[in-house]
């Protein structure tokens, strides 16, 4: 089992703030409601006592219903991997980290520029994640933007090249998502795994306050099978959410809970994560800000909410709006990574996503893998006892002498301090402006080349291919989300 990181040391919000935003979310759901474009969801909500307007597809949720569904959702669950050593428990105050799908461009480190991703890039990104020691889950890190089969290719390559837990975005409506479920269930049945929770799906309500037809179909297909699903919107402060932190936090929570209520009514106890990733609109450029100083409030609020109400929370960290591995990138990725871990978000994604989501970078991800190592060291904390206080050693050394030759120094010298390998201390002569990123680039090449994923049995691979062939025929008929 992967142990993750013990987070939750930093609570920026008071209990009153958390409670106030929760009450605000309940009021939004009760007074304003959500637009829900799906007959099956409307039927479920109607039966459960929500106020359903069939004509304009607006549903108003009684607070008691929302609270019951939060209670119904499991507080913790086990996410599985093809190698059960890589399973992990999502539970309060434990954080697990990974990258994300979505960016339409590869950050080509050698060219210092971006380019369109290929399927080979996807496979490389997956192999790298399976090799990085502190990364807990894998994603297909780019969007094959002209290929309608992208969701299938992502899942196929993840199942084939990765022995960690996988995460995918929801791209399709119901029929095609059922095919994806078939692929996951097939591998779960044929491989020696702990449970079938091999893949988590990321489903996104559209802000403000909409759950779209296709996204709900895909949520139903995934949760019918009891596979883990996260419901997490991205309200743009000032554009698709209000300009205030409290307002956007309440709206984002309401949107996430809308998806969770439907998931729990459909299949009580099915594993789900709440979440919200507010991104302010930059009011000079009209673009998303993946990093902003106030991200820490949302990281803290969602983690505190999740602990109080008992659900795992999706998190965001290791992101930057800078387009390359420069100073801004280092600062923004570090602050947002530490913010998410110290807040205690549980499934932290987006490590390595740069350029406001336009690019994904294997080098930045690799540098962040090392930063996660540092965070692990810090959150493990340090011990205070007779041995670590070392009063006897201090006495022995006395005034003005050195500890270098003491046994105590040798005993603790390899474990007391984290030893970075990429962002390491270099002699001045060996230092260069890009030394750490250059080292990360070399590490990426080494890890990708030395990756040796356990192949799927031939008949499983054939069956996966045949499911994909069926899906390809269908994809011409079916709308994507």
């Amino acid at each position, binding site marked *: 089992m992967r142990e993750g990181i013990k987070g939750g040391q930093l609570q920026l919000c008071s209990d009153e703030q958390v409670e106030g935003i929760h009450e605000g979310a309940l009021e939004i759901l009760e007074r304003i409601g959500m637009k829900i474009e799906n007959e099956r969801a409307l039927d479920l909500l109607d039966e459960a006592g929500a106020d359903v307007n069939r004509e304009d597809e607006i549903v108003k949720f009684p607070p008691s219903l929302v609270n019951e569904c939060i209670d119904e959702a499991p507080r913790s669950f086990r996410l599985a991997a093809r190698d059960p050593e890589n399973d992990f428990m999502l539970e309060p105050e434990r954080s697990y980290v990974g990258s994300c799908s979505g960016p*339409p461009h590869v950050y080509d480190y050698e060219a210092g520029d971006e380019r369109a991703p290929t399927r080979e890039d996807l496979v490389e990104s997956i192999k790298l994640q399976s090799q990085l020691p502190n990364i807990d889950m894998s994603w297909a890190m780019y*969007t094959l*933007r002209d290929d309608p089969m992208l969701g299938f290719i992502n899942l196929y390559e993840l199942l084939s090249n990765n022995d960690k837990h996988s995460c995918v975005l929801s791209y399709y409506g119901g029929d095609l998502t059922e095919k994806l479920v078939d692929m996951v269930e097939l591998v779960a049945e044929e491989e020696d795994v702990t449970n079938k929770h091999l893949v988590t799906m990321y489903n996104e309500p*559209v802000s403000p306050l909409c759950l779209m037809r296709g996204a709900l179909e895909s949520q139903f297909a995934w949760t019918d099978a009891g596979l883990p699903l996260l419901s997490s919107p991205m309200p*743009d402060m000032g554009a698709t959410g209000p*300009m205030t932190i409290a307002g956007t936090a309440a709206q984002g929570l309401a949107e996430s809970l809308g998806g969770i209520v439907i998931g729990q009514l459909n299949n009580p106890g099915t594993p789900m994560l709440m979440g919200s990733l507010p991104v302010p609109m930059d*009011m*000079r450029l*009209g673009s998303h800000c993946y990093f902003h100083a106030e991200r820490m409030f949302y990281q803290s609020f969602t983690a505190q909410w999740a602990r109080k109400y008992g659900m795992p929370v999706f998190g965001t960290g290791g992101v930057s709006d800078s387009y390359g591995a420069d100073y801004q990138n280092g600062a923004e990725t570090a602050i947002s990574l530490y913010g998410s871990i110290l807040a205690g978000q549980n499934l932290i994604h987006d490590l390595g996503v740069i350029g406001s989501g336009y690019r994904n970078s294997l080098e930045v991800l690799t540098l962040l893998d090392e930063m996660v190592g540092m965070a692990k060291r810090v959150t493990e904390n340090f011990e205070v006892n007779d041995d670590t206080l070392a009063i006897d050693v201090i006495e022995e050394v006395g005034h003005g002498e050195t500890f270098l030759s003491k046994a105590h120094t040798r005993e603790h010298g390899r474990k007391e301090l984290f030893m970075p390998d990429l962002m390491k201390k270099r002699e001045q002569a060996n230092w260069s402006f890009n030394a750490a990123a250059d080292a990360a680039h070399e590490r990426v090449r080494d890890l990708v080349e030395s990756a040796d994923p356990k192949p799927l049995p031939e008949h499983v691979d054939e069956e996966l291919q045949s499911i994909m062939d069926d899906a390809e025929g269908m994809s011409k008929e079916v*709308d994507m989300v």
Partner: protein
Amino acid sequence: MSDTLEELQEAIRNFDEEEAEAKTRQALEEGIEPQEAITAATDVLRETGQKFENGELFLFDLVSAGDAMNASREILEEAIKQQGDERESEGKVVLGTVEGDIHNIGKKILGALLAANGYEVFDLGVEVPAEEFVEKCKEVDADAIGASALLTTTKEKQRELVEVFEEEGLRDDVIMMVGGAPCTEEWKDEIGADLYGQTAFDAVHKIQDFEKADSGA
């Protein structure tokens, strides 16, 4: 300039739609030429656009001023039409998000920026079928269209749009511009559109350059 027109300008500067509408009607009642009023209103929007480019104003200011301007513009354009005249502008641009796609924000920003640069903007909203683009272009004798798509699948509708404009014999008369997250310069070339705007600013600059090059040729 008359007091009423100055008050109209002030209303737009203050993002006050109701006041802008009231002052517009008052100006017409006072016998002010609608073309003069629209020029006065456009001047303020242009000034807003400049302040935005300088960083003095933000996007929400620009969009709010654009909304106040629209309240006035609709009344004045109607009055100009009744006189049997046409509004003078930098050009007429029809905007819309293609069929099957509900994304609105990027297009709204583009509309505000175009208006701030003196263009006459006709925003058809979201989920706009190709026929509606055609109809509006014919109705207003548009110089350009901007078709937005945010999804990998809906961007195919941009290709269809170019085809429909070909069939309708409108292709050579209208600058066709595409935008949205899945679009690229290559995509624009592949479907035979004229312009791709990566951002709203990019789109405005490209349309200005395109017109200049066009009129120079």
